[in-house]
């Protein structure tokens, strides 16, 4: 059965984040608290990398179940890591976790274990800052990701397939990205084809939605194109989404519109999950 390979340190997988850094990302998205799209995607990347690091954290350090790339596209296409990881492509997760550009302290309410909440200070590491400059060369970015995916599938032919996660406002300025997206998912390991998921941040309004099974109701052609480019969720990811109360079907795709994409980290199985009794 595809998408069942064990994700381990000896058989890791890679996650390649593509981050739209074009000028249009300085526009605000709607909502009660207007935010620039560039802020939304930078925040999403920082939270995704935090969640991945914490998921794989053990007492001896973060385990390299995943190797991660953060690729920006705008005026140029290339590594979007800030700080000491700047310029690097695929980086083992332990190095990512140990080398954020900086760590902010923020206050957060957390469960006190007895049904209440207490305010506590939490570390908020940052690996990239918001950037909005240049065009939206999504084709070039997808081709860049394809080269990383191709290299990974050759190096780890039995691994869980690489996952490409594209965070964008969808307004490609170098042509229809559909063919470049298909080129990514044409690469495969013995466990299945590479996966491409998309987060669409948009000012077009409409209902925020996560992992829909239809393009009906999406507000514009950008959203519909990104939905159609997105891989169907593999069966175990659908099962997990369903267990969290999400409505899923066999056509559910890895597409999120103006909503939280960090759930995707929870879709990844590295062993027994650490969850409190409910």
């Amino acid at each position: 059965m595809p998408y069942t390979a064990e994700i381990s340190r000896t058989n890791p997988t890679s996650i390649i984040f593509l981050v739209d850094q074009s000028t249009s990302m300085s526009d605000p998205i709607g909502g009660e608290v207007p935010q620039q799209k560039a802020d939304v995607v930078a925040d999403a990347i920082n939270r995704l990398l935090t969640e991945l690091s914490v998921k794989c954290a053990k007492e001896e350090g973060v385990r390299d179940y995943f190797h991660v790339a953060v690729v920006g596209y705008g005026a140029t296409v290339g590594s979007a890591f800030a700080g000491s990881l700047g310029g690097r492509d695929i980086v083992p997760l332990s190095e990512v976790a140990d080398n954020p550009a900086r760590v902010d302290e923020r206050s957060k309410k957390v469960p006190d274990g007895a049904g209440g909440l207490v305010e506590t200070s939490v570390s908020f590491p940052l690996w990239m800052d918001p950037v909005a400059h240049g065009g939206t060369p999504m084709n070039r970015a997808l081709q860049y990701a394809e080269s990383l995916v191709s290299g990974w599938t050759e190096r780890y032919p039995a691994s869980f397939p690489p996952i490409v996660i594209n965070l964008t406002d969808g307004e490609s300025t170098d042509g229809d990205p559909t063919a470049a997206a298909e080129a990514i998912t044409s690469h495969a390991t013995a466990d299945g084809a590479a996966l491409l998921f998309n987060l669409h941040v948009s000012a077009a309004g409409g209902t925020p939605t996560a992992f829909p099974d239809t393009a009906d109701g999406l507000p514009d052609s950008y959203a519909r194109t990104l939905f159609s480019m997105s891989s169907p969720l593999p069966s175990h990811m659908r099962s997990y989404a369903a267990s969290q109360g999400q409505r899923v079907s066999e056509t559910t795709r890895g597409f999120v519109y103006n909503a939280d994409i960090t759930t995707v980290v929870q879709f990844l199985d590295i062993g027994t999950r650490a969850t409190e009794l409910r």
Partner: protein
Amino acid sequence: MTRPPSCVYVTHLVAPKHGSTPAECEDAVVVLPDRSHDEMLREPLTVGVCDGATESALAKDWAALLARTVAEEAMGLPDLLKPGAEFEQFAATVVDRWDPWLAQYTKERVEDGRPLKWYEHTKLAEGAFATLLAVRVDPDAEPRADADAADDGEPTPGWRWRAAALGDSCLFHLRDDRLLEAFPVKSADDFGTVPDLFGSRNHDAALLAERTRFLQGDCLPGDRLLLATDALAAWYLSAPDRLAAVRELLEFSGPDDLDRFGDWLNGLRERQQLRNDDVAVVRIDFEGR
């Protein structure tokens, strides 16, 4: 004819998943009294088996603390492993032991020049997680006159066991090496990656007690209790021939067999008969038949 003396032998084996070192193994076993596998036991015994969750930090330390505490508490309280206030009190006691342990650990890390990293602080705020399986075995005060194994009219020795389980670490009661009872998981299809877990920061002792399953039973000479963490338990429950599976497992009878046991597990993993996970197994043999 005089029967041979009744007694119990206990042996246990713990092996890490393929790709992990023994120090990284997150399955913990504590057997009390702490005797060698070839030493006869005639007194009550208790066992704690805990499987630390992969996604949890310090899972092996929490599993070890949980297994040790439940074995000790069940030794002191014969009725601990049944629904009621005593088990709820145990749940509160063991959770209360975690934060002092963690404070000491954190202090030692600072003293070693390796203070906790940001991701450890974040993760440990959530607590550590492990399954819990505990059993207490008591020999009968008097031999049983009515036991069905007494085919020669002699009174038969017997034992009473009580078990508690939260999560998917399993107990199997075997008679003539055939499965008499599987607890708490009955079928290989019921294993997954989201078992109920005992959280080190779960102060809701009533909930922990409510979600824990309890069972008791009686053993006769020749019976066995096998306690196993999920991967090996799933292998056994899904085996096409469970009798043959048990006999394969019985080839490993003591700590001297640990290397061979590890090789055997790796063979099962290569043939995709066993999920790659840490393995703990405890075997309690009731002698005297």
